[in-house]
């Protein structure tokens, strides 16, 4: 016990001396004894001198601050993203430009909302005056189309209804004419005669828009529903007549619906068109048994649809990307299809006598309004769809965007909105938020770099110390081994090992750990040589000779006398090596031989940017990641350089 105490007080006094310097400490002690000042020289301790010198370098201090912030962001940041997971993909949110405007309803529309609809990255709204507004990420990939450029014909006519698909918008004028804009390359709109007039060959994979919609139009009072799917659109009349057109390849059962022609209600999921036929007792898809069981809660028990309905009839169907909500006559609801399992918010339990009067669907969430005026949102919460706003009083109507919900009162005033605001740094080719991936990828990149450096420094320091201290044959042997490792060309060799690992069945974590080891094992010779050289010099210095003369043990000399003196040089090298390891990991991952998708690192996030078209068109997919990577490595190098200059007495003398 007493020894331990002694030990700790020794440590604090050592730290004190490190900072204040031996003579100052002595001066303090003298002062304490008799209370009078003494004439011991005021000497700045070397450590303090180093810190002072370092603080004089503004650039280096700035770089250090940035670096520390970067570290904190990367390691604390992921804690604030509980909904993030590596393998997240979202087909409707691919390659979206950085924007935060996905929920910003235009001012002019806010007091006058007739309807709002969204499917992909943008949302379309219609005012009671019949004017169309578009907001969100409106530029459509590499097509060069900006869907916010509303055609003059639409601007000049009074619009009755609008709906948005993944890359097109359909509007119906008060006269019943259907107007569309956006991308039309895959048959999203356009009639057969229009295609012929353009001199195009008819595409068998396209269901062309019925001629009647473009020419004479339909009676708008009879329209029950206008809805758009991925690249398809449909208009349903109240007598069940269905107009359906679009890209046949996106919906497997489109031919069936084209033939049936009559439905009570219908909607689009991501892969199927789902309908309710006249009997109103089942979900019609064309494939038997696809959606014949229903659930009442996420992950709950499933019932055959017939048993659940028990004679009740389906009133309407609301589809999201992978599931659908069936609203029954009595206002109760049930679900068919795959409900989200990650970040899911459970279906609300309603009080007795409360029932849904309105249910709308987004891409993965549902919002419902009850007869008591309560609003509930459930389903996937990955993009904050279910963070219901607080102030909902007076909401009588619900509108669902793709990942947003809007509520209005009877006269169309916007009451509340919640959901996805947008993506600060845009999305990647899988539809994942680049900002979240940068934070999580940074953690991975830094971890790989740090572990690699630890491995390499452990080997390097031990080998260097042993070789330098013992010299002779041990030295020759160890330095030959170092030479062998030094002669291995780094990147090709790491790639071979990685490629061989790829042909084995390893878990991703094991793979990453092996990559760390490869990096570490291939980088130690440099450090070993440096340490050896330092130890060689230190071994011959006076204090070691003095220690030897005093009969201090060899191991004590090596670790208590020599190692602390070479430590500063080692630390600088470690710092610079850390930067190098991060760079190497990114290069490896960039070439596809490092950490693999979906696990993000800064290297493999840049993987896609390998040709001029993508580099230009999807600049946000590499620029932000590149900035993070560059800033981090530049800061590491600046700090490392400054430290080396500061620690090297020779360079500070001739400065």
């Amino acid at each position: 016990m007493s020894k331990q105490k002694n030990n700790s007080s020794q440590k604090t006094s050592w730290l004190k001396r490190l900072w204040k310097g031996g003579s100052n400490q002595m001066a303090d002690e003298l002062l304490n004894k008799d209370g009078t000042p003494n004439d011991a020289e005021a000497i700045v301790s070397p450590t303090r001198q180093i810190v002072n010198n370092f603080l004089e370098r503004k650039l280096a201090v700035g770089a250090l601050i940035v670096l520390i912030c970067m570290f904190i962001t990367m390691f604390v940041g992921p804690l604030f993203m509980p909904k993030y997971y590596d393998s997240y993909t979202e087909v409707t949110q691919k390659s979206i430009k950085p924007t935060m405007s996905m929920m910003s309803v235009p001012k002019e529309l806010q007091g006058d909302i007739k309807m709002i609809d969204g499917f992909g990255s943008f949302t379309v709204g219609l005012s009671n005056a019949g004017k169309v507004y578009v907001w969100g990420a409106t530029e459509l990939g590499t097509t060069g189309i900006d869907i916010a450029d509303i055609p003059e014909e639409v601007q000049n006519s009074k619009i009755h209804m609008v709906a948005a698909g993944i890359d097109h918008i359909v509007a119906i004028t008060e006269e019943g004419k259907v107007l569309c804009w956006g991308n039309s390359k895959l048959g999203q709109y356009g009639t057969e005669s229009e295609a012929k007039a353009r001199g195009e060959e008819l595409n068998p994979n396209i269901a062309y828009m019925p001629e009647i919609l473009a020419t004479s139009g339909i009676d708008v009072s009879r329209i029950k529903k206008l809805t758009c799917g991925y690249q398809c659109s449909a208009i349903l009349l109240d007598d069940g007549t269905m107009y359906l057109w679009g890209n046949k390849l996106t919906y497997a059962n489109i031919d069936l619906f084209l033939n049936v022609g009559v439905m009570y209600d219908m909607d689009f999921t991501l892969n199927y068109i789902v309908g309710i036929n006249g009997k109103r007792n089942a979900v019609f898809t064309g494939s038997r048994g696809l959606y014949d069981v229903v659930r009442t809660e996420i992950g709950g028990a499933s019932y055959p649809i017939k048993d659940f309905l028990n004679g009740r009839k389906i009133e309407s169907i609301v589809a999201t990307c992978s599931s659908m909500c069936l609203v029954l006559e009595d206002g109760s609801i049930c679900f068919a299809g795959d409900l989200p399992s990650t970040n899911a918010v459970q279906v609300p339990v309603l009080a007795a006598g409360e029932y849904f009067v309105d249910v709308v669907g987004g891409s993965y969430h549902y919002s419902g309004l009850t007869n008591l005026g309560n609003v509930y949102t459930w389903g996937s919460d990955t993009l904050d769809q279910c963070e219901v706003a607080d102030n909902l009083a007076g909401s009588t109507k619900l509108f669902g965007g793709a990942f947003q919900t809007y509520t209005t009162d009877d006269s169309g005033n916007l009451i509340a909105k919640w959901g996805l605001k947008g993506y600060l740094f845009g999305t990647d080719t899988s539809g994942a938020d680049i900002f979240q991936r940068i934070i999580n990828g940074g953690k991975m990149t830094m971890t790989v770099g740090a572990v690699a450096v630890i491995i390499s420094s452990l080997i390097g320091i031990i080998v260097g110390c042993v070789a330098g201290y013992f010299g002779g044959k041990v030295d020759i042997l160890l330095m030959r081994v170092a030479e062998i490792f030094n002669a291995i060309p780094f990147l090709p060799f790491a790639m071979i090992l990685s490629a061989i690992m790829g042909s084995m069945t390893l878990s991703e974590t094991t793979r990453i750990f092996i990559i760390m080891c490869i990096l570490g094992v291939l980088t130690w010779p440099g450090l070993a040589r440096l340490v050896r050289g330092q130890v060689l010099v230190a071994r011959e210095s006076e204090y070691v000779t003095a220690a030897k003369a005093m009969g201090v043990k060899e191991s004590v000399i090596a670790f208590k006398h020599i190692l602390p003196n070479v430590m500063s040089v080692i630390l600088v090298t470690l710092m610079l090596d850390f930067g190098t390891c991060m760079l190497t990991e990114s290069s490896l991952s960039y070439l596809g031989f490092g950490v693999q998708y979906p696990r993000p690192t800064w290297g493999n996030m840049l993987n896609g940017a390998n040709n001029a078209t993508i580099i230009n068109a999807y600049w946000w997919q590499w620029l932000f990641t590149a900035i993070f990577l560059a800033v981090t490595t530049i800061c590491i190098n600046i700090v490392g350089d400054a430290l080396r200059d500061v620690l090297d007495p020779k360079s500070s003398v001739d400065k």
Partner: protein
Amino acid sequence: MLKYSLKRLGYMAVVLVILSVIMYMIYSLVPANRAYSDADAQVKAMKNTLPKDQLADYFDKLYLEYQRKYGTDTNNKFIRYGRWVGIYPLYDGSYNGLLQGNLGYSYEYQKPVVEVVKQPMLNTIKINIWATILALGITLPLGIYCAVKRGSKFDQGIQVMTIVGYSLPTFLISILFIWVFCSKLGIFPPSGMQTPGNTYVGFRKWLDEMYYLALPLIVMTFCSLGGMTRYVRASMIEALSLDCIKTARAKGLKEKAVIYSHAWRNALIPIVTLVVGWFLGIFGGSLVIESMFALNGMGRLMIQSLRTADYDVVLLMQMFYVAMALIGNLVIDIIYGLVDPRVRVSK
């Protein structure tokens, strides 16, 4: 000196042998069985001419034959290694390995590896000679100037730039340059080695090639600027602080004479070794830049071979890289001894 060189050469040979063993052992972890796939292919071709039971026998016979031919009829890795090098006889008693000039066979190209490697290597050498000339032409004067004007605004600016230069990974610099020069400014073509389908000859052909090589060369030069400029600057600063410079100045020599004839010669010693090492590096080729700009060089061949699991090519190239690195080390050490009499090489 001769004794030292011989001794180093001996070390080098030992290191090379050890590395070749390591390489071969790693390479043999790859689950590729050339004898099996060859026999399989041949049997499949005969499928319609032979009855089924004979087919299996025929396959076994062929498989054994191919195994003996390729020297894989044993599971002993060291015997296989011996056969690969050419110091252990094959089943029929003949030797057919590296020493006999059999450098391997590329599966992907259906050609001996030497033929596969030839053209990319020529391209790489061509590109790298230009890159080296450009890089040296810029870094040497820049480094000297920075050392002479040490502490000036210009020097500080260059220092920051060089830190940026060597902190950024090559692929990032490539992406940036492609974005700026190809996409935004449209000055250079983004990839390739010549205008597709051209029939240029003579000077016009050369000009076309240089036009396509311009951007990769700029990127390569930029990448090497950082490290090299700092190196030149550091060694020049060291040289400028020597006593002989003080003496020269005290004698009243012109500043130009002091810098270029007194300091520069002293600074040259460490630089020369680096430059020599660099010249040996021109055979290597840059993995990233070549695959980025679709240049048919060694680096790109390496990545492609890795992707298509053409491991004979990879193994040979790897050995080549290793040999180059070792020779480079040796040459640098010897030249160091030659240019700097103070270095006691015999030690």
